[in-house]
């Protein structure tokens, strides 16, 4: 008779929970008195308290003896306990999960409207997951799923959080405010799947949480696309030929091509610096998304442009770094698609 975990998690005190339940009309339904409701709620909080310890390492839940919880309920319990608010996670995404951040939770709570208790739980969950999988080898999502018995979806979200935390991506800037957690989670998924060591070779003993250093080095080679004048012009004409007549924003595209291309390639070239990795998303927005948006590109325009921009590079005779280019642009493309909205 555990009250819904979410309920408990969302109601910081028993009294709040009682109030919420009362407003919901439980009492009318069952001819019960407020006392009964209060004691029932207390019972549930106590049960939850005992359960919470187990939830910290969900694997224990399956073979502990204190509670007999049928597997499907275990799943639901874990899932609910590890659920989080997008509003909250958006605030801490990419931040160090330190004591300092934890101290600021009351501000976050005030800002997001998520109760402090819930903020703490979510924060602790993030930190717990982070600590466990940080040093683990193998695929990140799978590790999370194994250790915390989370659903695939939730495990992916946690993987995104861990990934962001580990690389300290900046997400808090004003310009990034319009992006939701799910946008970031999607991007994280792209990065994890394509830019980490594990992405290339599953057997590699390395971890999923760090970007592939070699790849980042190789990205420097892409600079030729903007430093070599011929190549740049050639690239531009190829793209423009392909785009002509297919979009209303053609003129803007043509006019901005060099700027945009420089923007993207520069981002690639700088990723060897940890500092620039952190600014990856802000750079994407500043260097590419914002100019496009001010030119009123539609999402379709964006898609069209990036597709041709990527493909045209393959036709360039002198451009030898096709593999790196694809690996880079594949991620950039999908990230920008996801991020290109209001």
């Amino acid at each position, binding site marked *: 008779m555990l009250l819904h975990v979410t309920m408990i998690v969302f109601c910081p005190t028993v009294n709040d929970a009682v109030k919420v339940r009362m407003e*919901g009309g439980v009492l009318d339904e069952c001819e019960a008195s407020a006392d009964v409701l209060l004691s029932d709620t207390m019972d549930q909080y106590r049960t939850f308290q005992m359960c919470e310890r187990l939830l910290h390492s969900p694997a*224990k839940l399956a073979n502990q003896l*204190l509670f007999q919880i049928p597997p499907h309920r275990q799943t639901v319990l874990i899932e609910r306990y590890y659920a989080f608010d997008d509003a909250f996670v958006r605030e801490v995404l990419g931040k160090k999960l330190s004591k300092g951040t934890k101290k600021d939770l009351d501000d976050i709570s005030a800002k997001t409207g998520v109760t402090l208790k819930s903020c703490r739980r979510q924060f602790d969950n993030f930190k717990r997951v982070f600590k466990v999988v940080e040093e683990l080898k193998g695929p990140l999502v799978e590790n999370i799923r194994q250790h915390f018995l989370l659903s*695939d979806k939730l495990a992916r*979200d946690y993987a995104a959080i861990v990934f962001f935390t580990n690389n300290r991506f900046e997400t808090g800037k004003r310009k990034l405010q319009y992006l939701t957690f799910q946008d970031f989670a999607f991007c994280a998924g792209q990065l994890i799947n394509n830019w980490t060591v594990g992405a290339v070779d599953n057997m590699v003993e390395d971890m999923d949480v760090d970007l592939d250093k070699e790849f980042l080095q190789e990205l420097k080679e892409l600079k030729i696309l903007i430093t070599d004048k011929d190549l740049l012009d050639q690239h531009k004409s190829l793209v423009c030929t392909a785009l002509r007549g297919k979009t209303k924003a053609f003129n803007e595209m043509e006019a901005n091509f060099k700027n945009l291309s420089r923007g993207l390639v520069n981002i690639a070239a700088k990723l060897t610096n940890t500092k620039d990795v952190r600014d990856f998303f802000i750079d994407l927005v500043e260097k590419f998304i914002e100019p496009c948006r001010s030119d009123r590109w539609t999402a379709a325009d964006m898609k069209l442009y990036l597709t041709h921009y990527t493909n045209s590079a393959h036709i360039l005779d002198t451009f030898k770094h096709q593999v790196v280019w694809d690996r880079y642009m594949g991620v950039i493309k999908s990230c920008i698609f996801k991020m290109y909205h209001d």
Partner: protein
Amino acid sequence: MPGKLKAKIVAGRHLPVMDRASDLTDAFVEVKFGNTTFKTDVCHKSLNPQWNSEWFKFEVDDEDLQDEPLQITVLDHDTYSANDAIGKVYIDIDPLLCTEAASVISGWFPIYDTIHGIRGEINVLVKVELFNDLNRFRQSSCGVKFFCTTSIPRCYRAAMVHGFVEELVVNEDPEYQWIDRIRTPRASNEARQRLISLMSGELQRKIGLKVLEMGGNAVVGYLQCFDLEGESGLVVRAIGTACTLDKVSSGSAPNTNTHVHPNTAPASNACNSPSKDGKEPVFGEDLPSSSGPPTPFRALPTSSSSPPPFSPSKPCSRQSSSSDTDLSLTPKTVEPKPVRCRPGIFLCPSSPTLSTDTLSLPGSGSVGCGHGLSSAPRATTPPPPSSIHSDCALLRKSVSFTEDLLLAASGMGSGGSAGKEAGPLKTLLRQHTQTALEQRGASSSGLLLNAREFPFFTLTSFPPGFLVHVGGVVSARSVKLLDRIHNPALGNTRSYKLLDWNSVTADEPETRDAWWEEIRQEIKSHAKALGCHAVVGYSESTSICEEVCILSASGTAAILNPRYMREGCLDIGSTDHRFEDPSPPSCGFCHIPYDELNMPFPAQLTYCYHCRRQKVPDVLFTTIDLPSEAAVTGKGCLIQARLCRLKKKAQGEVNATAISNLLPFMEYELHTQLMNKLKLRNMNALFGLHIQISVGENMLLGLASATGVYLTALPAPGGIQIAGKTPGDLSNEHHILTIQKRINDTIAKNKELYQINPPELTEEGLGSPIPEPRQRSRLFRSHSESSDELSELDLSHGKKDAFVLEIDDTDAVEDIHSLLTDAPPPTGFYSCNTEIMPGIYNWTSGIQMFTSVRVFRLSNANLTNQGLNKIFTDLCENLLKSFYFKLRSMIPCCLCHLNFTVAVPEEELIQVAVTAVAMTFDKDQAQEKPAEKPINKGSSENEEQLQFPLELCADVSSANTQPSSKVSGVPESTNVSSRAASVDYGSFADRCSTWLELLRLKAHTIRRGSVKTISSLERCSPLPEGRSRSLRSSRSFGGSSVTVVKMTPLSFLPGIRIIKYLGIINMFFIRETTSLREEGGVSGFLHSFIAEVFAMVRAHVAALGGNAVVSYSMKECVLMENPNKNQAQCLINVSGDAVICVRETDQEPTASMTNIGQTCCSANDGAT
């Protein structure tokens, strides 16, 4: 040296961090049995150590096997300082000593610490090898089966019911020993736990001996209690019903084990089990036990020079060991029925098939008065009749006679018999006097001594035809002062020494056994007065406060069918004629057993409404369950009478006197309340009546619970008529009229509620009621109800005679108000305190057991009796209400076996503990459930839908075919959860995955309901594909799975067949805390403790190979708190029968459902 105990420590898991520096633990294990200790290696730096130890072997006496628990201590190795204890596990070996029970104990046990609670788990393997030692002088009783169940266990057939067995053992309470001042609370708690475990073991062994002596092979309705008498010690006592049980289903020979041949005479069970050499008790003294120093607690059962008159069997059991030999002679034939006749060997007199003349046994030439002793012959050692009645010389001779027959004589025979000469003689004499006094009719047939001293039966339900007539409730109470009755033997032995109560002889009247005997005698005489020769549904209890102790016993006087009894077990005599007149089964038990012209108390008799041939009383009170064949109109309901009486604080005798003066009034009032409430519900019989009176320093609490029903055979109850004492007063009259109207309305409403529509009977057919002064009481008790001043007014309500209530003072008005304040259970709920609800037959498989403890702190304000009554009543009512609320998702359901226990642990505290089970049933009308409610009703609506009640709803979905809105309309889950749970989680991945598919559906539905208000859930709606795969893999991640163990206070599980009883679970735990606030106050403390107790019970059952506990009960829950010191201590004693069960359709044993024992505790600390 008849047994070898083997234990193997496999692994540990989830151990606590003992080394702060490394966040790890260096664990090792000590395995101790008796005085021998083994240690495992230290498993360094692991919270999940794998010891995989060798087999530790203990070579021990079977007596020790029965008494001692295997003690496993997990410690943290510390190089420099003392090793820290992590916790302990006590394992009761007893189930392994019985062939038909478990053969191995293997599983994960919670490691328990009395201060910290459960700290991880340990995997242990335990086996026992018993040697077939044919020693005749055994003190052990391996092989006797024990059942808490108060009916014949489901897979057995009662070949014979032998009757009452009782025993008690006394010791000092370690908590009150001088050493307690210098040892830690942990050490003290552990000493207590161990002692009680030992004492329970010994008690069980001794009862087993008695059973064997009587020729039985099992104890049914085994009820063990302990009395914490403080300074004066600790008493563990038990009662039960000795039976000879045959396994039903097995056409095959169930006995393959070496040490028992179960299917020979009941006696054989014991005789083949190893026995003990050379432990001849010396009269009046405690013998050093053979195990000597290792078991300081155990004293040998000392035979007394003057055995208590009521257990004539005792002395002879000790001395004559001849039957061992007989049985060892018996060919190990396996027959479905006990073998009664072995040529050349005299029969065990207890054999069920014996007719009256069986006692004149072949081979025993002299059958004289000897029957006296054979009345309670021990199966294992039935003394040859010839020896018994004769003097000691004869006895000795008889022993040698039997020795001739010995195959494997241990050579102890002569020594043994020599020692005892005095014993049997005295017994004999005693019995002679006894018989002379009793003047039983049966004496003429030479059977007089066969009549059991106490024809009591702890059973509450019986095989059809067993119960012939029921007389009514008989009860007796007595108030005793504890300090005055210091057990002399206790007083001068400062050492741990268990005292057999027999060692304190009958010349020492002030002993506990004497008290009980006194009470039992009283009960017996009450039963006799009711014309009954037996008492069924018998139970005993105590309530202790400081040095005052109230002893209570109650039961139902009845006439039983002698067919099932051992010969002479009952004093049938003159009542014989009744059996020639078979009554229809559905009403026979209602017919009065007493003589209608010479009634023990005034009652109104009518002809039975069913058969019209015999007389029935107007109201029937019983302590038993409703017989299955009884015809009932409508449904039953729980009826409770609650009462508080203040008393002055006093000491010693004054206090005892005050209490005993109060008792009759309390009983009277409780009875009146019960009667009124019964009438108010338009019912005419009470079943399962249990009256508990608890004593506190400044008050007495009385709580009577019963299940009211309308027995079709009994006359319809009249209404309740209110009468004013001072007619003429207009305002008063008006008042009375309003009350009368309310009462009439309530009765009408209740009639409808409980669907009581008795067929209208024409008065002519009934014959006129026998004109007899009406009396309210059918409850027969020692205190006469002289205070009953009922008016003879023949006011009528409808056609029937009305029950008159007089309003003459404010008290009466209060009473009537309280009468009307009892709220009926909400729609869809029924409640009863019997096993099942009379009138409901279509149980579905959903069950949910729960235990709730509520502690109420009274304010210091000057309380009145009325005020207290109100508080107490509200407390009970609120408890019930909270159950209804918590269980609302199980509707339609019935709360069965509601077992209330009240206590006054401290001056201002009232503690009520309830254990019950909610069972769902199929209700035709249930189809018309309100349709889905609008979702946007608010978050709490969602909460209702989303609620995945950890405990409660576990079964709901599996039980219900009608999705109520609360189960969030997921009929898919219906079969799902039950199926899923039926497998050992995780071990059947394929099953799991199909089940997961369905689960997803469910999750889906749940979410849909929730998104409206809980935004965080929005994103995680439908689960992506591949989820089942991931989960499946994750399941295996955690390692082994946990067997689901169902728990129920009932003797059965609906829709489930019990295929094997594995043994009795009898566990005692102490939990103490010095950080009460941090653990959530008393509520949090109790809540987690009870949850831990459940976990440990389940673990032990699972380790025995079982998947359910039936007849579970929490016998004791003693809470002591000291909020100022931030401390609390709690003692809990639980018991039940571990079983393997299958769903009725299945062949393979499976845990067919998940059921989680659930706890809820609330302490309204200082609520007022």
